[in-house]
């Protein structure tokens, strides 16, 4: 499979996801991108099968007294694309810190 050419913002979002920032609000916070960029980009990445989404289990969310969130996870193709994007944009690795859970 050929590597898809990602825009700078899409590469940044993919990098953030691959470092463990797994929902929209978190990605916005860590990248500093506006929500109007992050959410449509997440949809595009999901359509291109670079990420996949799933709902957080209701039980877990209820236990923490908050609504369930939609989590995004990088697929194998996404990891390859993120690696290629990091090589293309070397500063990307320094822009997004790894998530400490």
């Amino acid at each position, binding site marked *: 499979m050929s590597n898809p050419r990602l825009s700078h913002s899409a590469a940044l979002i993919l990098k953030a996801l691959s470092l463990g920032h797994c929902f929209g*609000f978190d990605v916005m*916070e860590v990248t*500093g991108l*506006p*929500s*109007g960029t992050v959410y449509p980009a997440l949809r595009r990445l999901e359509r291109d099968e670079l990420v996949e989404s799933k709902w957080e289990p209701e039980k877990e969310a209820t236990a923490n007294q*908050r609504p*369930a*969130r939609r989590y995004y996870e990088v697929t194998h193709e996404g990891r390859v694309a993120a690696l290629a994007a990091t090589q293309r944009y070397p500063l990307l690795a320094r822009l997004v810190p790894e998530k400490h859970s």
Partner: protein
Amino acid sequence: MSHRLPSPLPLFDRNLLRIVEKVVPRAEREEWSRAWEAELWHMHHCGSPRRTSIAGITADFSIGLTRDALWLRTESWRHTFSGTAILCLALLFGLLLLSTMVALILNGSCYLLGIYLRDPFGRFLLEAPLIFVTFAAASRSHIEQSSASRRMCWIRRQIFFAAKTTLTSLLAFMLSVNICWLIHAHFPVVAELLQTLFFVIFTLIGLRWVFWDQERRCKHCLRSLATPARVGRPSHNLLEWNGTELICKHGHGLLSVPEMETSWCQSSQWIDQIGAWGETASI
């Protein structure tokens, strides 16, 4: 809203969600609302260390959810209309409208445009059918059908072909007229000759595309055929199949286009798969 939140969202957010969700395609509406309710709830309750103004964050999220809804709607339209006959005709009509607008701007008024187009349009009515007949007679494009097509499908195909041909010819005409407008005032005879020449060239190019496009469309739903795949090898040309196969994304059939004409395979072949799927399902 089936999923209850631990605490309700502010009135502005609830109203905004209710309004914008109308833009989202029906099938995805519930999930979209649920996702955005959760995001907005987290925005209000978890806060943001970077952005201190709540109004700023709300404005940002309002833009975000609107753009997200619009993206889903656009994607749904893209999925519905991509490659369809309606989209093809709409694009041609749009281009025709655009070139007419250009002609109107160049001439200044509808009345002057009418005067300017009177003679060329008379020639167009004579030339266009002649070019079409000549091109159709010379064209070797022919498709063999594996089974008798349904009459309604055949009629729809012919109507689409006629509409596409008419719009393409009109577009070629308007383009040729617009190109020659600049020299028309100083060299009217040369402009007329050039206009005819350009019209013939543009129409021939257009008709070539019209025939090519018609061949590469599904014979049932008239969508563009997709995923072209090379089958066979050039060295097998005289003994076995060598060419390209295209399929209808909706599973109506398969078009086999030979790489070169042979005595046993002179034309493209449309293989209907509607009956085949029916038989498979009945087994």
